[in-house]
């Protein structure tokens, strides 16, 4: 019979930002281990969590593991059986090792011949006996962003048990009965106050709230329904969605009571994302702060409220900030007004600090702040942010003038680049680091610098999202669009080249210097440049990196860095377009065989390519093109170039099919070349390319490429090389051969 499995790992408060991922992991690992142990859950495992518990429930788990059959291979029959059918020593040895009579062995045919084998049947064990191993394995499997050693171990032969936070209790029920499971403690920690954790049938409610008796006492439960009900009675909502909805509902109601509405995600900061994972039993209170603080920039107010206090700013219907906030408590306090007063005092103190910084910072110009950047480290091998700013200034000027072709923007770009890091030396950013960039922009505006300068500073860390709709928008940028792009590109390309020269490489999920983010931002600006700035240049990435590397001339790591960065940026370009939803094969196709990495033309080709990939014409071309590429290899690249440079050798062509292909290429080439040269018209170009199919098919049907006559052979290969080169300018179409045809 199938029975319910319920596991709750009671912990000390887990970090809110880990909780969603960790909860999903716990379910997935248990599910995988249950299947591995041949007792799979009939339905997907349900998971729940609060800061103090990870919960998994499987409605139906079989009572026994399924039986198991294993084929144990022995020696080959040729060596194990004599002519008379009796076993040789090797054969007898195998039977003995398996603990069976020779008659129990069978013969199995394999590609390597016939072998002696033993088919072993294992009877499944009772589920309750296997579950402890399942949980031990699942706990070992859990991956935490940061692991804690807390003097714990599991007796599974793998020693110490690390986890995110100490585990305090384990509720482990199968069919309503406790499954025995122990987490023991290391000898060095052994003391009366440090005890083993033994599984039980009890859970614990809210730390402080209770309807009767003492809060936090053990609560005995029989199964999941009972568990959930008893926890709700004891002020714990195990379902995250329930907490989220309750918070949203109460925020809304309280905001309306205050005559405003909640600004949940000002400037992309989703304040509601973490709060449900900070509380077991949410309640909302509101408070106010003195109106005088509304003179502070809105960015300072919202960052202080959201990032530092997890408060929700209130806004009027017109979207302007009100001198009020809402807060989510993990409590239903007896006197909410007392708690609200305390929250107000904390916020007011922080805002008073912020105002001090605001006043103090404005006593100096950004130029004066910039002077202090020499004491702010960028990277040990690359000096300070002052050094970085000194590199950015000429780089941004060069980008505006030479790369964008907008010399009139050069002075503003250079001025913004010169000052863009200055806010790192300001009091405000040292305290509220999230405001880097924005604060510099605000101070620049206060100083009366032009919009083209202050907005460039304000937004220069952007973009951070890969989507083309991510911030900043053209409207955000206003008159600063071009200067912004010059500064933002200069900053990113300087970080990339500098960090690679200094030997930094992002590995796995580790990227302490934001190298990946810089690459992503670089690709995005170049890919969306016309929409963001009105500049239509298709800019090869290596044009920027080559220039930026000049600042690091003479560095030991330079040669390695140039090669490694090119590879890395190729991967990042592919990754950006894949994250935007492009088909992996299409991305590979438009990136293969390209001489330069140009995000804008890659994007343009990817924009139209999907319109063709499913057409019969294009599929035909894909298959044929693969053949073209295979055969064309017979003519080395440099020989081909020499032939073409010498005026071509196509006079040896005579067959009508090959002449037709030659003419087809000549006819279709201009449209394709135009698209490539002009950077647009790719739809027409792909249309022309797709139409090559019939001519190529006829060529392969009628013509034998590897002809005996060397002149004819060379002419035919040259023709294929020419076709290959032409189509490769658009995409390596052969990458799109459907799997079954390749």
């Amino acid at each position, binding site marked *: 019979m199938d029975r319910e499995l319920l596991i709750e790992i009671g912990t000390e408060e887990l970090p809110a930002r880990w909780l969603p991922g960790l909860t999903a992991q716990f379910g997935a690992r248990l599910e995988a281990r249950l299947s591995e142990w041949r007792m799979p859950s009939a339905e997907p495992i349900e998971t729940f969590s609060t800061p103090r518990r990870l919960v998994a429930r499987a409605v139906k788990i079989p009572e026994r593991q399924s039986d198991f059959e294993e084929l144990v291979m022995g020696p080959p029959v040729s060596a194990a059986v004599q002519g008379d059918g009796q076993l040789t020593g090797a054969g007898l040895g195998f039977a003995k090792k398996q603990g069976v009579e020779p008659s129990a062995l069978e013969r199995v045919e394999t590609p390597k011949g016939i072998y002696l084998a033993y088919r072993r049947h294992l009877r499944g064990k009772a589920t309750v006996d296997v579950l402890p191993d399942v949980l031990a394995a699942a706990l070992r499997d859990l991956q935490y962003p940061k692991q804690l050693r807390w003097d714990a171990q599991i007796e599974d032969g793998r020693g110490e048990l690390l986890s995110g936070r100490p585990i305090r209790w384990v509720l482990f029920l199968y069919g309503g009965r406790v499954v025995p499971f122990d987490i023991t403690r290391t000898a060095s920690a052994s003391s009366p106050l440090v005890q083993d954790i033994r599984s039980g049938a009890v859970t614990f409610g809210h730390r402080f709230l209770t309807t009767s008796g003492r809060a936090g006492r053990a609560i005995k439960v029989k199964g999941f329904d009972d568990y959930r009900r008893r926890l709700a009675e004891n002020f714990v909502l195990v379902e995250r969605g329930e907490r989220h909805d309750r918070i949203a509902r109460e925020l809304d109601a309280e905001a309306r009571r205050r005559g405003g509405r909640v600004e949940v995600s000002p400037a992309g900061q989703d304040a509601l994302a973490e709060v449900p994972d900070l509380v077991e039993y949410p309640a909302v209170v509101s408070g106010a702060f003195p109106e005088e603080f509304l003179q502070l920039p809105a960015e300072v107010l919202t960052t202080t409220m959201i990032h530092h206090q997890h408060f929700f700013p209130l806004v009027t219907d017109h979207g302007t900030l009100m001198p009020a906030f809402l807060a989510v408590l993990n409590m239903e*306090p007896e006197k909410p007004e007392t708690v609200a007063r305390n929250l107000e005092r904390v916020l007011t103190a922080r805002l008073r600090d912020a105002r001090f910084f605001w006043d103090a910072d404005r006593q100096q110009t950004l130029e004066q702040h910039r002077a202090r950047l020499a004491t702010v480290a960028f990277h*040990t091998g690359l000096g300070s942010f002052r050094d970085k700013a000194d590199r950015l200034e000429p780089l941004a000027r060069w980008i505006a003038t030479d790369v964008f072709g907008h010399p009139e923007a050069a002075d503003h770009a250079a001025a913004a680049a010169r000052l863009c890091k200055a806010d790192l030396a300001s009091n405000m950013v040292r305290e509220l680091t999230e405001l880097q960039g924005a604060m510099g922009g605000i101070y620049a505006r206060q100083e009366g610098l032009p919009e083209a300068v202050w907005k460039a500073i304000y937004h220069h860390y952007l973009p951070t999202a890969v989507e083309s709709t991510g911030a900043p928008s053209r409207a955000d940028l206003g008159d600063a669009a071009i200067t912004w792009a010059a500064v933002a590109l200069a900053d990113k390309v300087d970080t990339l080249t500098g960090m690679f020269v200094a030997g930094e490489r992002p590995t796995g999920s580790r990227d302490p210097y934001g190298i990946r983010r810089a690459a992503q931002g670089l690709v995005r600006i170049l890919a969306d440049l016309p929409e963001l700035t009105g500049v239509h240049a298709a800019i090869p990435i290596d044009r920027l990196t080559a220039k930026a590397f000049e600042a690091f001339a003479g560095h030991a790591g330079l040669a390695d860095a140039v090669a490694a960065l090119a590879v890395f940026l190729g991967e990042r370009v592919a990754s950006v377009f894949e994250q935007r939803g492009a088909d992996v094969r299409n991305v590979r196709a438009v990136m293969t065989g390209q001489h330069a990495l140009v995000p804008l033309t890659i994007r343009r080709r990817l924009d139209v390519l999907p319109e063709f990939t499913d057409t019969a014409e294009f599929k035909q071309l894909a298959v044929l093109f693969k053949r073209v590429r295979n055969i064309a290899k017979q003519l080395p690249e440099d020989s081909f170039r020499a032939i073409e440079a010498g005026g071509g050798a196509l006079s040896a062509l005579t067959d009508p099919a090959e002449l037709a292909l030659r003419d087809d290429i000549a006819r279709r080439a201009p449209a394709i070349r135009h698209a490539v040269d002009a950077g647009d018209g790719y739809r027409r170009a792909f249309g022309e390319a797709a139409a090559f199919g019939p001519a190529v098919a006829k060529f392969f049907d009628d013509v034998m490429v590897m002809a005996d006559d060397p002149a004819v052979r060379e002419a035919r290969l040259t023709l294929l090389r020419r076709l290959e080169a032409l189509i490769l300018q658009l995409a390596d179409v052969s990458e799109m051969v459907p799997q079954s045809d390749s």
Partner: protein
Amino acid sequence: MTFQDLILKLSTFWASRGCLLQQPLDLEVGAGTSHPETLFRVLGPEHWQVAYVQPSRRPDDGRFGQNPNRLFKHHQFQVILKPSPDEIQQIYLDSLEACGINPRQHDVRFEEDNWESPALGAWGIGWQVMLDGLEITQFTYFQQVGGVNLAPVSVEITYGLERIAMFLQKVDNVFDLEWAPGVKYGEVRLREEVEQSKYAFNQDTGIPADEFAAFHRSQFDANYAFAGRLADAKLLLPALEYALKCSHLFNLLDSSGSIGVTERTAYILRVRQLAVRLCREYAAEAEAAAAAKAELAG
């Protein structure tokens, strides 16, 4: 509850939980962690429970007595429990109740906040404890000190005494706190804040910046070299004192703007190397002593 009452309540509470009441380290340090009662005692296998107040100097936080929340010097109440008891969170909450904070009437939360001291080669995992949105305690399970893995793991509880007292007395300016009946915090400490801030930022001293820097650099170098000599002689406690002096001198060089980036990193690295060396040697001695003791007992 006065500031001194708060210290008495916490001392009484932790003494009743088996802690030895120690006294502050009589040196200039930035946190209670630097005290050998923490830094050395958490090393090795020997169990240990201790509590003490530690006046803590942070030159960079000096505000000339003009900021209601920030101080050149504040007071920490430091608790070290080795190993960490299973019920430590509850025991901690009980300590708040002993100070008159009823967790059922407030929003008390443990929010993720890990601790790291690059200069001590030390880090831990834990929380900041929030009381109605106010951070009142740093709660850390030590993982490494001086680059040495800790077993058993100690828990460090660091109460911010001024913050808690301000909460209890409902005052918004630290200098308005009642230290003892009829005596304000400002009366006790304001002059010290003003003068120490001026010194830390080298303002109104009339001492040229290069002379100020040169003096502290030479002090650093002399103390650093001497710490090494003492370490060579296996005098780890005196050596630690000289290392801590270096750490404080570095903080002063930093706050007065006397050092650049590359140098800054180099200074931190030098202090760290010293701390790592001292902690390694202390840990080795502690392990050996415990092994010898076990052999005698066995």
